[in-house]
């Protein structure tokens, strides 16, 4: 999936003015940076094991990613030597049962369940491409217990390779707001001075449905604010909204009531569209791979940009907007769907994410609409409309190419840079509109 991780100033300012608690997409980015930075400082030439924990309501999910050479050295056999995949799975399950144990504070062990393995190629900053193997396990307490406090005894690979480490991360703790980021808990390694591997006692702050809901709402918001493509799509739909059509061309200002009605219809249609596919997609009923969906989104932006230049589907905007909504919703579903949640949290995620998207879209409309309304009285508005539409159109073509060939290009990089100035642009637009209004009133007097 092409994840556009750029931040727009609007939000930084807005969150202070409108007081939206704690929305900080930039911080995710810095966090990742710090994480990567710190890890590379301590990096060993060969990458270490990455252990990813998912806290579920009745079990603990675990994914173990480790370089194949190190694993085979510790395992004592080559994965390829097994002719029978059942025998290999059984041998791997036994190996990890011997080397991982999870107990609760009452010292009861949680029951491991083998979830299979897969070999994949990964890239490391220091050694380049290498093959790693990914193991999946689940640990389930016999009796329902507090899943938020446990001890991890782990010595897989380390029992053989004394210089190996396992980095322990939480990748999913929905109730505590860990949804699409990673929290590093610590490192399990040999304690050199005592010559042993110490267990890690893990405690997680108590979370709640409300906390999880709040975070998924913020995630929905950041999806629009950080996704320059979604943002431009909304803006380019707004551009011709105040205008009437005459002779297959955009003509003059159609009045405030006319504009608001059109806006209301477009936005509602788009919302209904993406809500439907977000729901269907997240529930797994409709699931499309990310790449074609992302290409379709870029295409929808291109069509909307052309529509802002010359009306293509005037009067049928509802249908077009809801159709595009369906496409955009599929992309949202790809994000929420990968969380693999149980029904209650899944529904809360769908609703929270959708509301976050909605809220952000409303903010964008509120930020730009007054300027457009004020400016669209004047003939010079066509310059604004054409400028915005052409800019968006070029960006859309660049995105289509980027997503087709999976390689970013000069234009997409430039668009991301320009997106940083969205707020000053909005400010200038507003200032220009006000000046025009003042001038015209002075003339009338």
């Amino acid at each position, binding site marked *: 999936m092409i994840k556009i991780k750029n931040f727009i100033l609007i939000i930084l300012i807005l969150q202070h003015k409108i007081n939206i608690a704690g929305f900080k997409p930039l911080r995710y980015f810095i966090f990742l940076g710090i994480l990567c930075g710190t890890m590379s400082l301590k990096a060993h030439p060969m990458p270490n094991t990455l252990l990813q924990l998912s806290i579920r309501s009745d079990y603990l999910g675990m994914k173990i990613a480790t370089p194949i050479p190190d694993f085979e050295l510790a395992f004592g056999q080559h994965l390829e030597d097994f002719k029978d995949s059942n025998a290999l799975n059984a041998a791997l399950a036994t190996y990890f049962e011997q080397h991982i144990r999870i107990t609760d504070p009452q010292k009861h062990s949680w029951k491991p369940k083998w979830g299979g393995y897969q070999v994949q190629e990964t890239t490391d900053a220091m050694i380049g491409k290498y093959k790693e193997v990914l193991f999946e396990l689940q640990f389930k307490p016999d009796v329902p217990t507090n899943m938020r406090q446990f001890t991890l005894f782990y010595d897989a690979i380390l029992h053989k*390779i004394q210089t190996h480490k396992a980095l322990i991360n939480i990748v999913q703790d929905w109730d505590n707001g860990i949804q699409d980021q990673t929290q590093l808990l610590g490192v399990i390694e040999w304690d050199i001075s005592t010559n042993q591997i110490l267990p890690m006692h893990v405690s997680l702050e108590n979370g709640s449905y409300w906390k999880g809901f709040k975070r998924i709402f913020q995630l929905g918001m950041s999806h629009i604010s950080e996704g320059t493509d979604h943002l431009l799509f909304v803006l380019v739909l707004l551009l011709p909204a105040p205008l009437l059509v005459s002779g297959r061309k955009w003509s003059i200002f159609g009045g405030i009531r006319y504009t608001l009605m059109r806006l209301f219809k477009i936005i509602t249609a788009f919302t209904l569209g993406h809500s439907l596919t977000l729901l269907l997609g997240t529930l797994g009923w409709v699931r499309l791979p990310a790449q074609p969906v992302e290409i379709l989104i870029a295409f929808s932006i291109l069509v909307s940009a052309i529509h802002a230049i010359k009306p293509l589907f005037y009067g049928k905007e509802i249908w077009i907007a809801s159709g595009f909504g369906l496409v955009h919703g599929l992309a949202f579903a790809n994000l929420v769907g990968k969380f693999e949640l149980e029904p209650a949290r899944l529904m809360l995620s769908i609703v929270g994410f959708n509301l976050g998207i909605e809220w952000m879209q409303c903010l964008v409309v509120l930020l730009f609409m007054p300027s457009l309304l004020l400016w669209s009285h004047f003939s010079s508005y066509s310059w604004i409309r054409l400028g915005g539409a052409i800019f968006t159109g070029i960006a859309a073509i660049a995105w289509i190419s980027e997503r087709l060939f999976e390689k970013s290009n000069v234009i997409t990089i430039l668009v991301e840079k320009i997106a940083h100035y969205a707020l000053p642009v909005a400010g200038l637009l507003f200032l220009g509109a006000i000046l025009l209004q003042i001038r015209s009133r002075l003339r009338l007097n």
Partner: protein
Amino acid sequence: MFFATLLSAFLGWWERPATQPKTVAPRTTQKLLSPSTTQEIVNLANAFKQTLTATQLTTAQLTYNLANAQKWSNLPVTFTPRIGIRFGDLTAIQLTAAKALIRAASGSGANEGYAEMEQLWAADEYLGANGGGTAYSAGQYYLAFLGTPAMTGTWELQTGGHHLAFANTYRDGILIGATPSFRAVEPFAPFASGANTYEPIRQERDALAAMLTGLSATQLATAQLPTVFTDILLGPGRDWQFPTTRVGLQVSTLNATQKTLVLDAIRTYVSDIDDVEAETIMTRYTNQLDQTYIAFSGTAAITTKNDYVRIDGPGVWIEYSLQGGIVIRTANHPHSIWRDRTGDYGGTGNPTSSIKNLAETIFSVDNYPNPVLNQTTLRFNLRQDATVKITMTDLAGREVITPMQRKFMAGNNVLALDLNDLSAGTYLYTLEIEGANKVSKKLFKQ
């Protein structure tokens, strides 16, 4: 005691046995006639400082503390920046003065001391020209003064780069620490540099291999470790973590020839510093030889990937590890370190000198990441199971999270916290066992 003294006297006399591998050139004794005194080193340090501009001086002359002393690494400088002034930023005159200082502080033997450093600088030039790029060059080496070079007070002469770390600590004119001293090389094969052909760190490998292959099969079995080492254990950042129990084969069980081979191996590291100082340290290590252990993993020839050797005594700690190539992928390359169990950084940071910690149930408290974005993990250790109260306040002492009281188990603990609702600023968190101890730390929220 008498025996040990006698042995050391004997070994001192028996310095170079006939079994010495050919690649190790005989040590020159020229320098012994005019040893560098600390006064000379201080003079050369000041002479170098005089060549620097005011700006350069602020880069080179730093404060003496453990944090600065620990800023060495085995990674290219582009991965882990070093402190001090970069050779590449010095004029020819300045560089000459810097090298004169480094030469005075290091050994004069062939392939060791200063000669070895020249070879390691050249090795990075070779790497740069053979696929490594600009991250590797002789200009990517640094020199720093931690504390002001003088005959009084404590200061460290720190120099190093990609595969080299040299740390001489002086107090009141006396060398009190010559470690951690890291040496490694890639390419690990003879390479040309101008008219010369170099093969640094080969001498260390040969001496260590001679030490191992000189052992009987039974002795080898005792010395062999069950685990695999893909690198040295006590690399950068692993200060003062020496194992409480030594493993492998105790040198006291070795015969005289075998003991000599152990000392020869140690000497390939100790002779990297000034010849006279090296002799003083060698005498100490010779006296401690019977309490020293040797251990290895992999093969005794030290030619295969993941081969590993360790010499661990009351003072000396040497590790040598053969690992895969980074720039030249087709060959292995070694990492090695000489540390001293009491003398690293001249003793600075040695935890056994601050025993107050032992009385505390909660220790090693920190949080990661700090500054905090949304989530953070508090990490702490407990000496026994305990109920810990965790509070967090702003700098005015107002509580900002609901206090938590939980039972935690002895050992490593991690507590994941969500601080998304906190506004940016500085906070204090406190871990407290009622009636026992209390630890407070600062936390920054972005």
